[in-house]
Every structure is written in structure tokens, then in C-alpha cells.
């Protein structure tokens, strides 16, 4: 039993890690670009707000007829689910940087690029990480549903346990997913706190 859970947990973690990395890679630059450009920011945040309300199982199911069965539709769905909290929090973080800090950086002779790299980004990071934390918990939970479109992961064990009435497998798989979500939450909370201390 544990061999199966371990293998599925590995697959689960890999799928979630990939989705989260892709979502950060796409979402963070977009939100950073949009933070001070209303023409980009307004539609971006509107789409993020709608994206937050879409049920994950509906999104996964919708991609099935388009992308077929397997990892690809699951990965796309998880990236889409991870994007809204990341976009919203990167935006919030950047706009929350005190104007005085930016003025001071300009006064020190920094150019726009240095200002972003040395002042804005480090100050915005804790808030941005809170968004990554929310996204990670959501992705880990939603990835269990990816079993319904054949993407594997710990959802396989939960579904199999339900079908065979195997309480031990059910408990073990459920607790493993919950523990992964909890660990991700703890990790990103700690990371945000550590960075906050360093910057203040």
C-alpha cells in the first residue's frame, strides 16, 4: 500500500510543482508589468477574479474534450487555477511598496531596472509569496481531482479506496494529501516571514 502511495505522492508533488512554477513564470511578470499600467491591470485583475470563482473540477472536465486524457490537460488546468492568487498578490505587493522607498532609490541614483531589482521586488516578495502559498494549497487539493481525467497522483489512491471500500488506503492517501497541503502552507508562510524580517 505504502509503495503505491509513495509513488503517487511523488507524481502528485511533481505535477503540482510544475504547475506552480509555470504559474509563477507566467503570472508574476504579467502582474509586475500591469501593476502601474491601468490598461493592462484592469483586464488582468478582472480575469483573475473570474478565474478564482471557476470550480476546479469544471475546469478539468472542460479541458478533457479539448486536450484529451492525461497529464497535459491536468497541468493546464492547475496552472490556470494557480494564476489568480499569484497575479493578485504580486500586484498587491508591488503597489504596496511605499512611494518614499522608491523616491529614496531614485535619489540614490538608481535607474528603473535597479529600482525594481533592489527595492520594489524585495519589498513586494513577502506579499507575493502569500499568493504562491494560497496557490500551492489550491493546486495540491485540486490535483487530487486530476485522477478523473487520468493524470494520476494521490487522487488515484483515493478513488481506488472508495471503489474497493479500503478504509486503510483511504485514510493513508487522504492524510498524505492533507499533509502535503499543510507542508506547502507552512513552508511558504515561513519563507515569507523570513524574507520580511530580512527586508525590514
Amino acid at each position, binding site marked *: 500500500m505504502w509503495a503505491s502511495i509513495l509513488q503517487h505522492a511523488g507524481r502528485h508533488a511533481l505535477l503540482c510543482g510544475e504547475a506552480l512554477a509555470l504559474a509563477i513564470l507566467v503570472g508574476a511578470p504579467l502582474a509586475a508589468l500591469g501593476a502601474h499600467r491601468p490598461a493592462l491591470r484592469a483586464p488582468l485583475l478582472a480575469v483573475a477574479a*473570474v478565474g*478564482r*470563482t*471557476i*470550480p*476546479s*473540477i*469544471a*475546469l478539468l*472536465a*472542460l479541458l*478533457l*474534450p479539448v486536450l484529451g486524457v492525461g497529464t497535459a490537460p491536468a497541468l493546464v488546468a492547475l496552472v490556470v487555477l494557480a494564476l489568480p492568487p499569484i497575479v493578485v498578490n504580486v500586484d498587491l505587493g508591488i503597489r504596496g511598496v511605499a512611494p518614499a522607498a522608491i523616491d529614496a532609490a531614485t535619489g540614490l541614483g538608481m535607474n528603473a531596472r535597479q529600482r525594481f531589482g533592489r527595492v520594489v521586488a524585495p519589498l513586494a516578495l513577502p506579499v507575493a509569496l502569500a499568493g504562491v502559498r494560497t496557490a500551492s*494549497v489550491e493546486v*495540491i*487539493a*485540486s490535483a*487530487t*481531482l486530476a485522477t*478523473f*481525467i487520468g493524470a494520476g497522483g494521490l*487522487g488515484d489512491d*483515493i478513488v481506488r*479506496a*472508495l471503489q474497493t*471500500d479500503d*478504509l486503510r488506503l*483511504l*485514510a493513508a*492517501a*487522504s*492524510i498524505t*494529501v*492533507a499533509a502535503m*497541503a*499543510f507542508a506547502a*502552507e507552512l513552508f511558504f508562510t515561513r519563507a515569507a516571514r523570513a524574507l520580511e524580517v530580512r527586508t525590514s
Partner: protein
Amino acid sequence: MSYLAAHPLRVALALGAHVELVLGALALAFAIALPLGIRCARGGRVAGLLLGALGAVYTIPSLALLALLVAALGLGTLPIFVALVAYAQFVLVRNVAAGIGGVDAAEREAAIAMGMTARQVLARVELPLALPVIVGGVRIAAVAMVALATLGGYVGASGLGTLIFTGLALHHPDEIIAGSIAACALAIAFDLALRGVERLVSYRSSR
């Protein structure tokens, strides 16, 4: 869309069952969360423990929570109903507590100075002022519940999930699409409607 055109009644019935399930669970969840939230707003160790425990329930992935409840309660509407009520507690209790906690101490003191009892302060000052935050919690909970309720289709409860899971099992893309889009539309409708209520009550209380 072709599925909707061919089976409008099936989609409408599934939508109706879905709304009924969500509203029923939301009503019960709120009835439980309101006293718990008021208790949590008073602070202390019990409040911390309670919020921590509810937060832990909230971190359990929904499919895992539902599976555990099916093992305990059997198939049908009951496990999904219990899952919905349990899952909503964290958001609802947290927002009730935050709403009451955010009431200006001066308002509370003014009410006490006017001779109100603790009960009157709660009913006439604290709860009305906390209303926008409480409605915000109801909105977040309702949207999450619309999503979670679709999983009911997997454990034999009726709702839009029935269309999605039947479609997945029988390879009917049209049925999957009809169920999924209806679920998205319902979630967005709940979000917009409760945003409207939120705006209405915050306008009232700021006057």
C-alpha cells in the same frame, strides 16, 4: 450547447438540485458559524484552538474529506452535505470574528455608555457594523461550495456534478461541457449576487 438544447430539462433539474444543496448547506453552516464566530471574536485560548482546528479541516483536500465522509456515512447526499457544512466553517467563522473584531472600540463604548446590555451591543452595534465582512465570508464560502458540490455527483448526490461525472464515464463531451459551464456560471452568479449584497450593506452602514 447542443446538450443543453437536447436536454434542457435534465440540465435545469441538475441546476436546481445543485442550488438547493448549496443553499441548504449554506444556511446550516451559517447557523453554526455565527455563534462560533461571535465566541471567537472575544478572543482567548478557545478562540485560537477553534480557528486552528477549522483551518486544519479547510486544508484537507475536498476529495479526501468527501471520501472520508463517504466511508463514515455511506453514499448519497448526506456526505456531500456534511462536507459542504464543514468546509464552509473556517471562512464563515473567521469572517464573523474579523468583522466583530474590526468594530471601533469607541462605538462599543458609546453603546455601553448609552446603557445597552452586552446582548444589545452585539445585536444593534457589533453585528450591523460587521455585516459587510460577514457577507464577504458568505460570498467566499458560497463560491467554494458551488465547486465542492459538483463532487457530489461522484458519490451519488444529484446536482451538476451528475452531468460531469456521467459524461466522463460515458465519454459524452457535450454532457461534460454542459455540466461544467453551468457550474462555472452558477459560481459566477453567486459571486456577483453576493458582491451586490456586500456593496448594499456597506453603503447602509457607512451612511
